[in-house]
């Protein structure tokens, strides 16, 4: 039966920015739109705002659902909402679709006012620093001088970390979850295989596939399948799928036989229907480029010297994409700077995806940490 509860109905909003944004690459976006959602109420002191940054495939739709689609639950609905760990009765939570995204903010699929056509391959490469600048402008317009907290998992955690460096006075707490201060060669390698799958799809048309009325579905599907493997742990896959056969017997062919094949193809198909291939390319590049220590000869402690926030760093034991070791490196650099930091290494079997999962201990930790934030 369809739920009659309407308290979790949320409506996305859009803000237009006509002030040019100079990007790290040197390119300039003359104007852009950001689509965002808010949950809860900004208090009179404007001290209860929380920014939640999304990862590769996320969006501004953090929680709740849309009035016209009861199944449209936000990607972090188990964490954010009234009475949840990030309690929207206490905090004013903001989700933004990042620049270059494909959920409404200006991105490669948007129309470039200069040409009247989709940006496509003309959309500039975007970095985590660029996103932070754009998010800060949105915060200005929402009347938020300082966030009580900025939180994110994976690529979202990188944004939370970058905020503390670029706007040290505008963030009191940073929650950096299942993240890393930079990608390893192996991480970049996975991203490049994903990009190659898209770039070599005959339907890619050098990024201008919109003009041809096609999408590089095969490439995007492969990219997502590969990504999905790296988000899960070996154990989780073994437990969930093992060597189960869909039809109980070997077919001696190349169709879908094992359950894991069926699952990955399903995930790939679903994703390629919803996500823009150019956005995928941009997101993986933003991941690859993120490296705040680069300008400090690789010294992360020196890179984090500007930070003033208090930190929560969380990792998950079976996350091999951004392993606990990567989080511990962040913790070490924060300790070197005498910053307040707490770190927990959460036992979980779900690999990198753990940060999205409902896990009792994880959610209790988040609730306790958020509860300790003074408003």
């Amino acid at each position, binding site marked *: 039966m369809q739920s009659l509860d309407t308290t979790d109905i949320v409506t996305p909003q859009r803000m237009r920015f006509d002030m040019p944004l100079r990007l790290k690459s040197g390119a300039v976006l003359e104007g852009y739109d950001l689509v965002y959602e808010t949950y809860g109420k900004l208090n009179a002191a404007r001290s209860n705002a929380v920014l939640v940054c999304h990862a590769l495939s996320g969006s501004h739709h953090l929680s709740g659902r849309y009035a016209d689609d009861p199944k449209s639950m936000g990607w972090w609905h188990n964490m954010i909402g009234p009475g949840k760990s990030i309690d929207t009765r206490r905090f004013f939570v903001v989700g933004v679709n990042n620049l270059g995204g494909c959920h409404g903010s200006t991105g490669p699929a948007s129309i470039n006012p200069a040409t009247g056509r989709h940006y496509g391959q003309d959309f500039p490469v975007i970095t985590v620093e660029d996103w932070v600048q754009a998010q800060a402008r949105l915060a200005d317009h929402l009347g938020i001088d300082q966030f009580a907290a900025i939180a994110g998992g994976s690529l979202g955690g990188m944004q939370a970390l970058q905020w503390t460096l670029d706007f040290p006075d505008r963030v009191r707490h940073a929650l950096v979850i299942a993240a890393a201060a930079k990608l390893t060669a192996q991480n970049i390698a996975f991203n490049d295989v994903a990009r190659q799958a898209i770039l070599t799809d005959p339907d890619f048309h050098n990024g201008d596939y919109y003009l041809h009325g096609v999408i590089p579905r095969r490439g995007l599907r492969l990219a997502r399948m590969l990504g999905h493997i790296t988000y899960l742990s070996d154990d989780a896959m073994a437990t969930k799928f093992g060597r189960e056969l869909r039809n109980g017997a070997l077919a001696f062919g190349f169709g879908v036989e094992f359950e894991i094949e069926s699952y990955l193809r399903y995930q790939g198909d679903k994703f390629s229907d919803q996500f823009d291939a150019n956005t995928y390319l941009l997101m993986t590049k933003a991941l690859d480029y993120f490296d705040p220590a680069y300008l400090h000869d690789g010294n992360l402690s020196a890179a984090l010297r500007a930070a003033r926030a208090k930190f929560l760093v969380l990792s998950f034991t079976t996350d091999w994409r951004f392993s606990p070791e990567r989080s511990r490196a962040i913790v070490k650099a924060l*300790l070197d700077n005498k910053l307040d930091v707490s770190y927990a290494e959460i036992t979980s079997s779900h690999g990198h995806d753990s940060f999205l999962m409902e896990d009792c201990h994880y959610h209790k930790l988040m609730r306790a940490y958020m509860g300790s934030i003074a408003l």
Partner: protein
Amino acid sequence: MPIDHKIDTMTSFARIRPDFAAIASWIRPGTKVLDLGCGDGSLLCFLRNMRQVHGYGVEIDDENILACFNNGVNVIQSDLEAGLQSFESDSFDYVVLSQTLQAVRHTKEIIREMLRVSREGIVSFPNFGYWKNRLQIMAGRMPVSEALPYQWYDTPNIHNCTLGDFEAFCGQHSARILERRVMSGERQVAFLPNLLGVLAVYRFERRR
């Protein structure tokens, strides 16, 4: 492992853990303190309130980590037996090992690490030489008491020692004892401390 207590007020802190008061009395206000095996963070809470310290705890147990979060205490989840690699040399004013010494496996290494990250260390431990413990051993049984509330088969306390043992250990491992406080409940024990003391608290430094 530190014993888990629900604590309401500062006075009850000191009553439940008499070593807290001794530790606090030795710590200069506004200093930087690392508490190894910090449990639910109650010592760090106590020191924050009494001495305005900037503190961090190290703890391995999930429930204790959660308790530290609830107490608003900085805590790093890690196994102190594996060393303190996250902490730079001389980065703290004090490193505290409160009622944990007797439960650690790599005693020498941990004391060495304490004196690497800080000039001064503070430890507290139950005195195995306490007369009631001796009496129970004389009677042919392993001691079980308020300070050592475990049976031999389920005790986490694998490295029990007496005051004499610890002082000899310091002498052999480059640690110079600066101060000692021996307690029986909330009372200080000056007479025959190795016989009449239940709990020992030591402050020591790296020998130059």
